[in-house]
Every structure is written in structure tokens, then in C-alpha cells.
């Protein structure tokens, strides 16, 4: 059972990034590729400052700030320099590789006293339960604050920017500012995800973010299937389903591992599982009609 709990835990850590992807999808209609870089950025900032024994809250602050800055740069490149959104993301991601390497000073940094955050609460004997409780609380706080932001006038304007830019501009909203702020929020969430994962795995690695945008995208898409299937409009539930998507994505991998399938087929099976989850509801609803 611990194993599946660990998978859920990993999913929860990654769900912060899924939130980020969700927001960038809402305002851009395409995923923000800088995610790969900002996720690692969160990891390397936390890795570096933990090894320097900085205060835990200061580290979280730095992680959020770093992610927001990177996201804002993507936004500025896209809106002010009129660079295609995908390319802007790719450029920031590429540049961040060097920046991450400079921050970390080396390519891989193991952390000896890495569980600074996860040992704050000691309610259970089993450390996994404690970690779970802490990560769960963090994600819950994120969920509530995001719901608040997305339900506010500002949040509505931001979400609408992705739906119909022209209309939103006609209402007197500066869409460029919306995009820059939105990407800053999205990437600070992603960086936070990198922070949580670094604490969970006990090391920061320069390659930890490669392809992570795909995991986030997969989670959001899987969530969207359910959102469409049940026709959900409430933003709290939508975000909850995004979390669920991130968890299921990791659980799929966990099932594939525990079924003992041939390691060569691991990724194929993962893809097939996800396809099944995404495809089955549509197939059923088509039949029902």
C-alpha cells in the first residue's frame, strides 16, 4: 500500500505543475514549454539553498520568485517581441538550462538533510503518511488560493483571454499584461512542483525537468476528459480533477511497474493505459447516444 501512496504522493507533487500547465493552456491555448526549465529551476534553487542551510520559508519564497520571473520573461518575449508562444517557451527553457547549471554549480546535487519540510509534522509512525499529510496540505492551500484567484474579476478576465482575445480587449483589458501575469503564476506553480519533487527524491538534477511538460499536459488532458464527460463548470472541481489527472498519471506507471511488465515496454504500456482512460469514456458516451 505504501507503494501506491508514494505514487499518489509523487502525483500530488506534480499536480502543482499540472495547475501551471492548466493556467497556461487557459490563457495561451497551447502548453507553455518553459515548464521543462522552470520545474528544474525550482529544483535547483531549492537544492542549492537547502545545501546552504537557508531558512525553509525563504527557500519557498525564492523558488516562487524564480519561477515567476522565468514565466514573466516568457510572457514578455511573446507579447512585447511578438515571438510565437511556443518558441518563446522553447527559448526560455533552453536558456534556463545554463542558468540552472550555474545555480547548481554541478549537474547533480544530493541533499543530505533534505527532509526539512517533510519532518515538520510527526503525527504518524510511518514517515510516508507524514509527508503525505504535508504535501496534501500544501496542495490544498494552492487549490484554495487558485480557486480564489480564478474566480475573481481578474481571474475571469485572464481565463477569458484564452477564449476570445478580441472580445476581452474590447472590454478594456490589457491582454498582454494578462498573459505575462498568467505565465508568471503558472511558472511559479511549476517551480514549486520542482521544489516538492526535489525534497521528495532527495536530490536536484539538471535533467529532472526534461519532458516533464508532457507529464503535466497528460495530466491536464486526462482531467479534461472527465471535465467534458461530466460537463463540469465549477472551477474548484475542475482543479480537483486536474489534481486527479496528475495522480492517475503516476498511478498508471505504478500499476505498470507492479504488474511486472517487460521494462522495454514500460512507456508503451503507460501510453496505452492513458489512452484507455481517455478513450473509454468517449467510447461509452458515443454508444449511449
Amino acid at each position: 500500500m505504501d507503494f501506491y501512496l508514494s505514487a499518489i504522493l509523487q502525483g500530488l507533487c506534480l499536480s502543482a505543475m499540472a495547475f501551471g500547465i492548466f493556467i497556461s493552456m487557459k490563457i495561451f491555448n497551447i502548453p507553455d514549454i518553459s515548464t521543462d526549465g522552470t520545474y528544474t529551476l525550482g529544483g535547483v534553487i531549492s537544492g542549492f539553498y537547502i545545501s546552504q542551510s537557508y531558512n525553509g520559508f525563504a527557500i519557498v519564497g525564492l523558488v516562487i520568485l524564480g519561477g515567476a520571473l522565468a514565466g514573466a520573461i516568457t510572457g514578455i518575449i511573446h507579447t512585447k517581441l511578438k515571438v510565437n508562444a511556443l518558441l518563446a517557451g522553447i527559448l526560455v527553457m533552453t536558456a534556463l538550462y545554463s542558468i540552472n547549471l550555474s545555480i547548481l554549480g554541478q549537474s547533480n546535487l544530493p541533499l543530505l538533510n533534505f527532509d526539512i519540510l517533510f519532518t515538520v509534522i510527526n503525527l504518524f509512525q510511518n514517515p510516508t503518511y507524514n509527508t503525505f499529510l504535508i504535501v496534501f496540505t500544501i496542495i490544498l492551500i494552492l487549490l484554495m488560493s487558485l480557486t480564489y484567484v480564478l474566480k475573481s474579476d481578474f481571474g475571469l478576465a485572464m481565463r477569458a483571454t484564452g477564449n476570445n482575445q478580441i472580445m476581452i480587449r474590447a472590454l478594456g483589458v490589457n491582454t498582454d499584461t494578462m498573459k505575462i501575469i498568467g505565465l508568471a503564476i503558472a511558472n511559479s506553480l511549476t517551480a514549486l512542483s520542482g521544489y516538492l519533487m526535489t525534497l521528495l527524491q532527495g536530490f536536484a538534477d539538471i535533467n529532472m525537468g526534461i519532458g516533464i511538460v508532457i507529464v503535466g499536459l497528460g495530466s491536464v488532458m486526462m482531467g479534461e476528459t472527465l471535465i467534458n464527460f461530466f460537463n463540469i463548470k465549477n472551477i474548484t472541481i475542475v482543479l480537483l480533477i486536474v489534481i486527479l489527472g496528475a495522480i492517475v498519471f503516476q498511478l498508471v506507471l505504478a500499476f505498470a511497474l507492479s504488474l511486472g511488465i517487460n521494462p522495454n515496454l514500460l512507456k508503451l504500456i503507460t501510453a496505452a493505459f492513458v489512452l484507455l482512460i481517455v478513450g473509454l469514456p468517449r467510447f461509452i458516451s458515443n454508444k449511449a447516444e
Partner: protein
Amino acid sequence: MRFYKLLIVLFALTGCNSTPKSTLPQIGFVDAFEDATIAQAKTGFVDALAKNGFIDGKNINIVYKNAQGSIPTLGQILDYFVSQKVTLLATSTTLATLTAIQKSKTIPIFMMISPTPKLMKIEDKDGLIPSNLFGVMENLNYIDTSFSIMPTLIKPKSGKLRIGMVYNQAEPQSVEALARINTLAAKYNALIIAAPVNSSADAQMVTQFLLDKNLDCFFANPDNTVFAAFETILKNCNQKNIPIFTSEVGLVKRGALAAFGADIYLWGYQAGVQASMYLKSGETQNLKPEMVKVRKRVYNPQVAKKYGITFPLNFEAIK
């Protein structure tokens, strides 16, 4: 209707079952990524166990997983092994070893293709290493010996011996090797011209860039990208008639001129011998991480013929 839909989804999610537990001692073997040369470590490990009477499926159960280069997957694999309460963990390459150390403080870990704890930076303030870490490691001394064969065999075209090298910024071992080689170069009156290759896709361009620098020979420090892109490096070097030296036997088989270094198969074998000692006694008191024992001087006879180089007798021709 919604409720009905929800039932279907729940049904689909609960239709999964975990595998039945085996009563045999379980060995969790994890590779961080796919590679033909690195895979020999696993073969060596399994052979050593078999030689000592531990045969997969008969009296032990080897569960093999490969993270296919994904760090989140690597974490899950080790979570899985820990939850299955495997008897021991076998980790191949540095990243797998590092992840194992962070995931378990009790299950003995037998590492291979990994550097010393000091190089991995996992020693604490008192220089202590995790108490459950065993297996076979390597320090950077191998570089001294493999480097020294270049000045003895290759005469510079003019002035200093110019040695080209690619390294991977994403691998501590590779970066440290470069630093070490730069200090060695001064001693041997050689000049290192190095360029970073961080993914195998860059190898072609970077090798070409280096080959334009009037090299005398090329040093292929065995890191992940070199393993992956060795054929690219080889093809380009062959076209310019630049011999490649390395520190890993497998790369000589793939076309490098000569090496003085560890044999990946025997490295895994040595770790397997240690693991079977643990399986026999069930105790770890007498075990500690060991240095790689077998280092070989080898050369590739076909390549040597091409460059007209005769090797001293202490070099072994590779088949």
C-alpha cells in the same frame, strides 16, 4: 446519468490487482537508462550470482526494472522495490544509486557503474556514508592511467600533443574527469581542447568542431552521451584519421583504439559476488563498498593496423 457514468469510471479503476508475492528472496535490479554497454553490468551481476549458486527463478527472484531515462519513473521503481521489501537492491549507474540511497536507509544497496561516495557528494560532515551502501565503485585514478597511454603512443604533429574531448555538463563524473584531465595535461605537455555535449543529438556538430582544431588524438571519456553517441564520434574521427582513446573496454570493441580501464561486465560481476556474500550470510558487517578490482589494458587490433601503431606486450588485443 452522471451517477451511472461515475460508476463506470470507478469500475474501470478498481479492475486492477497487484501481483502475488513470491516467497523467494527478491532482488530489485534497477537501471537508470537503456544502453548496450551499461547493460553488461547486469549480465555480469546475474552471472556472479549464478556462479555462487543463486539462480534467478530457482532460489532467488531477480526483478529487473529500467527507468528509461526518466527521473520520476526511477523514483517510483525504487518506491516499488522498497514497498515489496526486496532483500537487496542492485543499482546500475550513479543516478540509480543516488535515488536508492534517498529512498531506503535499511535495504542493502549494491551499486555498480557508480563513483565513490565522495565523488557522489553523499558523505556527511564526518565523512560517513549511508550505512546500507555496498557494491563496487570507482574513483578518478583510472583517468590518470588511461590518459598516460596517449602521450606514450602518439607523437604530436608539432609542439604540444593536442587532444580533443567531449564532456557532459549534466554528469558530475564527466565534469570532474575533465578537470582532472586538464591538470594531467600540463604534466604530459599536452593541450586539451574540450567542448560540451549534453545530448547525443549535439555530438555530430561538436565533434566536427573539435576535429577542425588540428587534433592529434581524441579522448572519449565514457559518460552517458559518449556511450550513446560513440558511433557518431567514431565516424567523424575515422574520416579525419584521428585515433580515439578511452577508459572503457566496451568502447574499444566499438572501435576506439585503446583503453586502460574498467570492464563494465566485470564491474557488475564484482558487485554480484559481493551481493551473493550477503545472500549467503544475511549479514553486512563484513561488507563495505569496494574499488573496482579488474582494470584492463586493451587495444583494438584492426584500428591499430589502420594507424600503424604497435602496442607494448602488456596490452591485450580485443576480439
